[in-house]
Each structure stands twice: as structure tokens, then as C-alpha cells.
């Protein structure tokens, strides 16, 4: 039999279902109902990994989310999951797992030599050691990351999918143990809609791990009846394998559900799903987490939590060792001794070492009656066996609990069950802003005042006896239902539960040895991050007073397990080192979500791949696609970037398109431009306030370019607005700003000027826009419409209603290229018809479709700005030389800010052109500009930057490169040279005006 530690019978596993799995390449078997941890223990695996800093051999400590050591790399490729706690992964057939922090393997690890140098790696050693010289960090980092690596990221896309569920309920009960079951049953009986969430595959909580009785039968029978009653209630949802990972404002709780023990097989079932629950009331029955005693070398494989050992014996039918010692400060751990003693001949109890003198509770008496040796008033002062416990050294503990007495005695054992008492799991209570109060007697934090509609019940509220949990849970469930409006509850019969009398525990935070802490063995507080009591004491000596600072300095509680076992002892050690009498006064660190790690896949849900963000396509999209364009993403829009012909590269295609527009006629799909329909008697006054220029006198059918500023005087957006009637305008915005400009207009109308009678409506998607542009544009349009097109009848910056290719259209004579240009707007459903009609009619004029890249080159040749490219939120109209558009006669948003001191500086950056010495150099956009030539600045010196390149292209029309730039005092520098340090050397450029083509504007009428 390979499962050497499997007990012959007992446990909640299914011995008929054998499951094969591999661990570090070893083939092992377990049973259905096992976790990976219980299966590893059953197979006698003691070392599951190496510790984070010292690479000490480590074994399994816990049986749930508290586990600090047994972190596994699960599966490979796209399904790889790093840092999975073996105690939380259900075993399935074919599972493969590896240790995360060792190389080549946990039994022989090359990094373990680190432990020999532990005096060189004290608390905060990263901060102390690797800070100097700073330039060496890039070398250190590489080595440190590998040495301290925890897990590896998946190497392929995740083949599984994940879902998100939204749910509302009257009462959410977190935890399906005795308190949670009682609470959910009581709330459901009152008629409330209940959701019960529990992280295990079976409800029962702690009952799964205990030999408790309720009403004279096994407690799990009571649990099954409670579950049936809840599940049988209308609208109740029972979620197993579901962990509440975060409790947020207004009773919003995030749950993550594992949708089965086995990975989905490619079918419809998602792997995990997130539940977003909004509850009227929440009952937190999250139980308690056992804390270990902090004794010398308490990290040796085989040192486990007493309650966890009970789980392995009772729930999984596994005895983790043959000869087990218990080390405790309380009565509860005696249950472990009793359960082991009853587990049969395979396992023996070596002794119970109790820090208390003359322990006297009922469980102690039972242990004595069973003949178990009890060593009282004693301390474990050492552990024998570095790769697995072989025995313990025990000495007497003095009255104060800070020193040892008498002679040392060795006790042979292979497992040590350690118990320092139980901490209520107040994590969720704390997430949502709940306070914690310290119970000095028991050394625990209890849930205090809460900001949410929530109550804690059972062990989470500090009630540790079973009868109290059931009763408290039922009361909490009933009260929560009543708060949610279900005041009538049926009479409840309290089940009969025998309660053992337990004596108080004795708080010993650091178990002393014959030497000062840290000099003889290591007292580990946080095994996951290798933080010892000596580290925390050192932090205190170095001046750390706050637990929040000491935590970050020592990294206590910052590992994947988030210090679920070590935080409270760590606080106590800090408190003692600082001489604080009451540990509660040291404070508690704030618990933050998630309680246990949540996969990124579950958080993303279905919002991946093509569903991550909507794609917006113009009505002409498919024509572009057939024409073989390349795409540019502009916000959510897909826009043709350029149309390569016969294997053209981008440069050749864009040059061809640029020439075609300036020499013949080009056509652009401008449907993505934001369009806002503005109507109302005050529309012109409204535009007066939001634009820098004047609008009231604009004639009907006339267009005007406008600049929109923020109240800080900086450019926010630009575009052409056309007056269709006295009370009717249509505004265009840049493609990317359409939504934010509409929100901006709405904000001012609703919050500042509600007296203005104006309505704004987005009509971006209602209109398609084909823009024809170039000297032959008029000839082309004449073929498709019968209105007069000469410059007098249809002047620049005007608009006409017309029929184009049989389609009712608005034609705008506006230009973003400096060429004769018509922007033809038709209802979106007719966009493709218009486009193909123009393409067909334009054939004889050499019509050339062009994309956004050509548009950018052409507009830059004319010095036309693009908001967000020539501007960056610190750019004023004056900086761009656009004073001409700024009215001096009226107020508008942003005007007052021009007078602010910073906007009056005489060294502001101004828009200019740049021509490089070498006409083939296309400067990188964003390149920094200096006043003098600097090949290599002296080390440590700062080089004054006087500006940066905003737009840069090759222009086929100029036959050379050119750029736009923002340069300090740029307009004064026209004719001077500036320098641009680039990767390949320093480029020199002459500062010019920003208009490169047709500065007198003679081409606009064709």
C-alpha cells in the first residue's frame, strides 16, 4: 500500500474512487474527497516546498486557507495556476502539481545554503542590502526574483471560460458551519431570500473535522437536515466551493465559486464564476483560524496546527505521523490527542505538552483517563530533525512565561500538533470598514462596530463552543431576516448539544529557550515569508512603532496566505518588544480583499478577446475591408489607416494617397467624427459660452471652426459647427472626444445654466460622411448632384442641402487638408451607396481612397492641429498661435484663465515647424528638443529641454520630411537651429513657421 499514512477506515473520503495524480513528477494516488494536501500526507510526503528566503524544507501546516507552506504550481500551459494552497485544491484524477520555491526539487534544493548565511539576511534585508549603488539594482533584481520566485505564470492562453453572476438577496450567510447553517435555516424559515456560501465541497464547516454530536447523533446528520431545509426553501441559493473574497460598501459581497472538483472538459461549463451579491443583510459565520505557538524551529516539516491534524484524521482518514506530540496553551488541542488516541493502532500520542500548570478542563480529564502523558507547565524548547521532526526538547516554563527551568527532556515524535488558540476570522468584517476590539483575556480580536448591515455569528464572533455557535447562528439569522422585513419567524427548537467545560488558555506569545530569541533556533511567525520573532524584535529596536510599518518592513503577513496564522502572534511580539502591556494597543493591520487569491480569469469573466471592448464600424466598413486597407483603432472605432496596393509598404501607399489628394481627388470615410445636434432658442448663446469665438451672428447655412477650452484655459476639443437654422446647429467633435464633449455640454447645461433652453443629442451614428478632397473634387461632385458648385454659389465654410447620387444629403464645404473639399453627409443607411457612387463616378478623375495617415500628413502640411497631438492639456490657443479665434468681447469657458500668471509666462512652448538638416530624417514624435548640441551629457547633469516634437512625417508634396513641435519661445526662434538627441546621434533642425503647403490658402477653392 502506497498510502502509508492512510487510516484503515473512517473519514469522508470515497475509498472506492481512487484518483491518480503527480507531485513533482512522482505518481501518487488518493481518494475522491481528498485535498491535494491530505493525499500528500496520506502518501507520507513530508517536504512540500522550500521556504521563501532561507530555502528551509517545509511541510504542510494547516488544512485550509491558513496554509503558509504548501504552495503548488498546478497544471501546465494555459491552465497553469501558481501558488495554489494544497489544502484548498480538491484532488481530481490526473492532477499534476509541483512545488513552487525550489530548484531542482524540494528534497534537494541548491539555494538552501542561504540558511547558513542567515545573519546576513535580517529583517528589511532588501532595503538594507540592495539599495546601493542604485545603478546595480538591475543586476540584483534578476537574481533576487529567481531566488525568491513564487510560482510561474501560465505560458499559453487560458482554454477555459469564466462567468459573472449578479444576485440580490435578503440575507447572505457566509460560511456553512454550525453557525452559518443555523443562521441560513432560521432566515429561510422566516421567508427571507437566502444565499448561503461555503468554501468547501460539503457544508458543515468545522463539523466535517470533528467527532461532535447533536441531538444524540453525528453532528453531520444535523447539518444535512439543515442543508435540506435551506435548499428546500423557495429562492434560496446554496453555493458550495464558494469563497467570499471581499466585502465592499453598501453590503456588496464578492464570491468566487469553483464549479466542481474537476477541470471543465471543454464543454459549456465555466471553470469558476464570480458572484456579485448585493444583500440587504449579511451574516458572517466565517469561523476561526487556529494560531500556532511560536517556538524554536517551529517550521520543521511535521509541525502542524492541532485543529488541522484533527481534520486530517477525522475528515480525510489520514494520520500525518506515527507518534504525535501535542503542544498547547488551551484545552481544545486535547481533542486532537483524543481523536488520535482513538484512531487505532497505527498512531500513538507521545505526550501533550501544556504551557499551563495543572490544566483541569473536561477534555484534559478525558485525556488523563485515556492514559495520555501530560507534561504541564512546560515548553517545547527545540525540535530535532531538519528535514522532518524526529523529536522535541521539553523544559519547564517559569511563572512569567519568559524563561525555562529545570532539566531538558527529549520526547521522540514525528509530528507536533501546535495550538495557541483560535482567532475569529474577522477578515470580511474588516474589509467593509468594521472595527476590531481586543479581548485581552483570550488574546483575540473580535468583530466590533460595523458600517454595514451585518452581524457576525459563531466562532467568527468569538463563540467557540458548538451549542453557542448553533444558538448564536440561529439568533443572527432570525434577526437578519427581521431587519430585512421578515419579522415572523417560526418557533425554533434548540438542538441538544453536550458542552465540555474548558479552562482558559495561557497566553505565551514567544516560547522561550535557554538563549535569547533567535539565538537558538528560529521562531517563525510567518513561514510563507520567513519572518521570525527575532526579525520583528529587530524592527522594534530599529524604531518601528506601528504594526503597519513593521509589517511592511519585515514583510510579515504579506505572502499569499496573508498571515492568517502569524499576524496576531506577530503583533503580540511587536507589542512585547515595545513594552506595550495590552497587545490590542499595538493595533491590527487592516484586512483588505481578497480573503484568498482570486484568478484574473474569473475577474475578467467573458470580457476577453473580441468581447473585451465593443468595436465600432462605419457603414462603409466592409468596402474598406474588401479594398484591403490596414486599420487604425481610434477609440473603439476602426478607421482605414491606408490602402496598400499591390504589395506597397506604408510609406509608398501614403505617398501615393497624399499626391492624389493634392493633384486630383481623394475620398475619406469621415463618418466617425463626433456629431452633436444642438437645438433650442438659446443654442447660439450656449455656443458663445462653450467656444472661444462668437456665434450669435453666424448666418444660417454657414460653418465656423471652434475651439473648446476647459475652465483652466487649456484646449479641450475643436471642430466645425454649422448653423442649420436660427435655433438649430450641428457640432462636430474629434472622433475620440465625441462622448466626452457631449457630457461636457450636458454638465454645463444641467448644472450651471439650466435657464438656457437647449437640447443636445448625439447623432454621430445617424450620419455617414464621405469627404471628397482635391482639385477635381468639384468636377466629381457635379456629376452626382445638380446644385451650383461654383465658389460664389457654394462658398467655403458653408453648407447646402442637396441630393447626391439620389440620396438626400448635407454637403459641408469645409477642409482639413487645405484643398477644395466637400464633406457629404447622408443618413447612415445610405453611406455605402454614396461611397460606391462617388468611387464609380470618380474613376475618370483618378479618385483615390485615403486613410487616417494621409489625412494626418495633409493636415500637418497645412499646420492644422490635432487635439491630443499638438495639445496635451497644458496648451492654450495662444501657444498655438490661434489668438485669432479668441474673442475679446464676450465671456466663455476658460477665458479668465488666460490672465493667470502661468499662462502669461514669456517662455511658454509655442507651435512651430521643424525642418531637419537631412531631408530624409523623420523625427520620432515625442522627441525632446535642446538648445545646444549635446552628444553625451556629463553624468549627473541635467539638460534643459526646450520642447518636443508633436507631429512628424515624410511629405511627398514637399519631397522631404517635416515636423510640428512645441518649443519654448518658438516663434522667436524661427530661422534658428535646435537640436534633437536621438538614438543614432544628434539631429539638427531649423525652426520654421507651422504651415508648409500653400500658406496663402490659394488652393481652397480648387
Amino acid at each position, binding site marked *: 500500500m502506497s498510502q502509508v499514512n492512510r487510516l484503515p477506515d473512517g473519514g469522508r473520503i470515497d475509498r472506492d474512487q481512487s484518483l491518480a495524480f503527480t507531485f513533482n513528477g512522482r505518481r501518487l494516488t488518493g481518494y475522491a474527497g481528498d485535498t491535494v494536501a491530505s493525499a500528500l500526507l496520506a502518501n507520507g510526503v513530508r517536504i512540500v516546498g522550500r521556504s521563501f528566503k532561507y530555502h528551509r524544507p517545509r511541510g504542510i501546516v494547516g488544512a485550509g486557507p491558513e496554509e503558509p507552506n504548501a504552495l503548488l504550481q498546478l497544471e501546465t500551459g494555459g491552465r497553469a495556476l501558481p501558488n495554489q494552497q494544497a489544502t484548498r485544491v480538491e484532488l481530481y484524477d490526473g492532477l499534476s502539481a509541483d512545488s513552487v520555491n525550489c530548484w531542482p526539487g524540494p528534497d534537494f534544493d541548491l539555494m538552501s545554503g542561504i540558511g547558513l548565511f542567515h545573519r546576513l539576511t535580517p529583517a528589511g534585508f532588501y532595503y538594507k542590502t540592495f539599495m546601493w549603488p542604485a545603478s546595480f539594482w538591475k543586476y540584483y533584481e534578476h537574481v533576487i526574483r529567481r531566488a525568491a520566485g513564487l510560482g510561474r505564470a501560465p505560458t499559453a492562453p487560458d482554454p477555459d471560460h469564466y462567468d459573472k453572476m449578479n444576485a440580490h438577496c435578503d440575507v447572505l450567510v457566509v460560511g456553512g458551519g454550525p453557525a452559518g447553517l443555523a443562521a441560513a435555516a432560521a432566515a429561510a424559515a422566516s421567508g427571507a431570500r437566502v444565499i448561503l456560501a461555503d468554501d468547501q465541497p460539503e457544508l458543515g464547516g468545522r463539523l466535517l473535522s470533528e467527532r461532535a454530536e447533536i441531538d444524540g447523533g453525528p453532528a453531520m446528520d444535523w447539518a444535512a437536515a439543515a442543508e435540506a431545509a435551506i435548499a428546500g426553501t423557495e429562492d434560496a441559493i446554496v453555493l458550495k466551493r464558494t469563497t467570499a473574497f471581499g466585502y465592499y460598501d453598501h453590503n456588496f459581497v464578492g464570491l468566487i465559486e469553483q464549479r466542481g472538483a474537476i477541470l471543465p472538459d471543454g464543454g459549456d461549463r465555466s471553470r469558476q464564476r464570480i458572484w*456579485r451579491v448585493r444583500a440587504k443583510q449579511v451574516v458572517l459565520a466565517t469561523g476561526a483560524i487556529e494560531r500556532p505557538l511560536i517556538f524554536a524551529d517551529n517550521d520543521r516539516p511535521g509541525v502542524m496546527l492541532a485543529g488541522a491534524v484533527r481534520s486530517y484524521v477525522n475528515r480525510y482518514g489520514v494520520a500525518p505521523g506515527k507518534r504525535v506530540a501535542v503542544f498547547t496553551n488551551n484545552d481544545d488541542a486535547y481533542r486532537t490527542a483524543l481523536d488520535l488516541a482513538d484512531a487505532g493502532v497505527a498512531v500513538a500520542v507521545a505526550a501533550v505538552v501544556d504551557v499551563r500548570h495543572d490544566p483541569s478542563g473536561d477534555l484534559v480529564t478525558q485525556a488523563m483517563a485515556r492514559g495520555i502523558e501530560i507534561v504541564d507547565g512546560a515548553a517545547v524548547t527545540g525540535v530535532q530533525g531538519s528535514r522532518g521532526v524526529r523529536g522535541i526538547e521539553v523544559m519547564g516554563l517559569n511563572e512569567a512565561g519568559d524563561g525555562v527551568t529545570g532539566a531538558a527532556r527529549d520526547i521522540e515524535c514525528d509530528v507536533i500538533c501546535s495550538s495557541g488558540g483560535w482567532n475569529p476570522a474577522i477578515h470580511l468584517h474588516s474589509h467593509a470598514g468594521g472595527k476590531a476590539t481586543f479581548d485581552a483575556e483570550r488574546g483575540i480580536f473580535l468583530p466590533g462596530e460595523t458600517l454595514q448591515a451585518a452581524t457576525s455569528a459563531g466562532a467568527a464572533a468569538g463563540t467557540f463552543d458548538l451549542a453557542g455557535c448553533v444558538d448564536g447562528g440561529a439568533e443572527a439569522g432570525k434577526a437578519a431576516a427581521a431587519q430585512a422585513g421578515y419579522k415572523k419567524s417560526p418557533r425554533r427548537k434548540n438542538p441538544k448539544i453536550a458542552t465540555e467545560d474548558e479552562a482558559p488558555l495561557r497566553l505565551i506569545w514567544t516560547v522561550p529557550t535557554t538563549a535569547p530569541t533567535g539565538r537558538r533556533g528560529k521562531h517563525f511567525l510567518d513561514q510563507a515569508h520567513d519572518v521570525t520573532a527575532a526579525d520583528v524584535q529587530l524592527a522594534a529596536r530599529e524604531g518601528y512603532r506601528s504594526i503597519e510599518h513593521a509589517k511592511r518592513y519585515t514583510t510579515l503577513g504579506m505572502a499569499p496566505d496573508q498571515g492568517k496564522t502569524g499576524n496576531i502572534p506577530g503583533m503580540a511580539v511587536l507589542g512585547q518588544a515595545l513594552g506595550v502591556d495590552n497587545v490590542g494597543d499595538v493595533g491590527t493591520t487592516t484586512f483588505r480583499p481578497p480573503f484568498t487569491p482570486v484568478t484574473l480569469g474569473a475577474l475578467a469573466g467573458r470580457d476577453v478577446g473580441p468581447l473585451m471592448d465593443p468595436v465600432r464600424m462605419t457603414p462603409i466598413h466592409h468596402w474598406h475591408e474588401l479594398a484591403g486597407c490596414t486599420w487604425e483603432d481610434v477609440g473603439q472605432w476602426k478607421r482605414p489607416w491606408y490602402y496598400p496596393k499591390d504589395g506597397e509598404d506604408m510609406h509608398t501607399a501614403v505617398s501615393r494617397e497624399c499626391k492624389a489628394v493634392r493633384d486630383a481627388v481623394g475620398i475619406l470615410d469621415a463618418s466617425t467624427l463626433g456629431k452633436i445636434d444642438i437645438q433650442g432658442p438659446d443654442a447660439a448663446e450656449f455656443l458663445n459660452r462653450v467656444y472661444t469665438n462668437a456665434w450669435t451672428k453666424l448666418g444660417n447655412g454657414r460653418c465656423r471652426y471652434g475651439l473648446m477650452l476647459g475652465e483652466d484655459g487649456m484646449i479641450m476639443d475643436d471642430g466645425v459647427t454649422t448653423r442649420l437654422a436660427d435655433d438649430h446647429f450641428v457640432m462636430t467633435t474629434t472622433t475620440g472626444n465625441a462622448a466626452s464633449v457631449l457630457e461636457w455640454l450636458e454638465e454645463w447645461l*444641467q448644472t450651471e445654466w*439650466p435657464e438656457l433652453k437647449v437640447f443636445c443629442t448625439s447623432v454621430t451614428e445617424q450620419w455617414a460622411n464621405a469627404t471628397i478632397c482635391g482639385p477635381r473634387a468639384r468636377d466629381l461632385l457635379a456629376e452626382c448632384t445638380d446644385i451650383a458648385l461654383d465658389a460664389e454659389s457654394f462658398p467655403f465654410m458653408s453648407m447646402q442641402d442637396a441630393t447626391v447620387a439620389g440620396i438626400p444629403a448635407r454637403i459641408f464645404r469645409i477642409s482639413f487638408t487645405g484643398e477644395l473639399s466637400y464633406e457629404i453627409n447622408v443618413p447612415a443607411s445610405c453611406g455605402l451607396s454614396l461611397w460606391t457612387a462617388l468611387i464609380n463616378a470618380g474613376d475618370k478623375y483618378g479618385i483615390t481612397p485615403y486613410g487616417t495617415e494621409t489625412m494626418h500628413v495633409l493636415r500637418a502640411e497645412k499646420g492644422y492641429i490635432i487635439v491630443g497631438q499638438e495639445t496635451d492639456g497644458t496648451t492654450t490657443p495662444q501657444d498655438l498661435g490661434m489668438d485669432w479665434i479668441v474673442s475679446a468681447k464676450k465671456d466663455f469657458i476658460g477665458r*479668465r484663465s488666460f490672465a493667470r500668471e502661468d499662462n502669461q509666462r514669456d517662455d511658454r512652448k509655442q507651435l512651430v515647424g521643424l525642418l531637419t538638416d537631412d531631408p530624409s530624417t523623420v523625427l520620432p514624435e515625442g522627441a525632446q528638443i535642446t538648445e545646444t548640441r549635446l552628444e553625451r551629457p556629463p553624468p549627473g547633469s541635467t539638460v534643459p529641454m526646450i520642447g518636443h516634437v508633436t507631429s512628424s512625417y515624410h511629405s511627398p508634396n514637399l519631397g522631404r520630411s517635416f515636423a510640428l513641435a512645441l518649443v519654448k519661445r518658438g516663434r522667436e526662434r524661427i530661422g534658428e537651429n535646435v537640436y534633437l538627441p536621438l538614438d543614432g546621434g544628434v539631429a539638427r533642425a531649423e525652426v520654421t513657421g507651422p504651415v508648409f503647403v500653400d500658406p496663402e490658402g490659394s488652393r481652397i477653392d480648387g
Partner: protein
Amino acid sequence: MLLIPCPFCGEREESEFHQGGEAHIERPKNPDKLSDAEWADYLFLRDNKKGLYLERWVHRHGCRRWFNVARDTATNEIKTVYKMGAKPPRGLTKGRAK
């Protein structure tokens, strides 16, 4: 994730809304009369209070209407909501810290 009672639509998730900063800051009627410091106060300076805060929200992915919210910034409790242009309800005073 707050649950915000939009005065027009009812309770909706916070993700449907956008917070628009402190409420009851009126745009000066005559900006030219203001010193640079006074203008900067209007432009940039906002209270950052622990406790009751009167702020503007817009139901961006809903009715697109702006409204005011009285929220306790320490507890996130929403005391009340009220429409644009309305005065804060009695008992809720702004108390601007200078």
C-alpha cells in the same frame, strides 16, 4: 461598490455613475472682477473632508442626469440625494474648510 439612489431612476450600481466633484460651487458671474487667487480657488480648490460631503454625480450610463449626493466620506453612507439647483436639505450644512 456604492448603491446610489438616482432621483430619476432609483437605486443603481456605482459603475453606472460618474462622480463630478464637490457640489454647490457656482461659476463666478463676473470672472474679471476676481483676483487670480480667487479665480484659482474656484478653479482648483475643493474640500477634502472626512465626514459629510455634498457632491455631484451624473447617471452616465442611465438617464444622463446630474444630481447632488450627500455622502459621508468616512463611512460611504449616502444620507440623501437631491436635484440640481435644490438647496441641501435641512441639517446638512456644507461647512467649507479654508
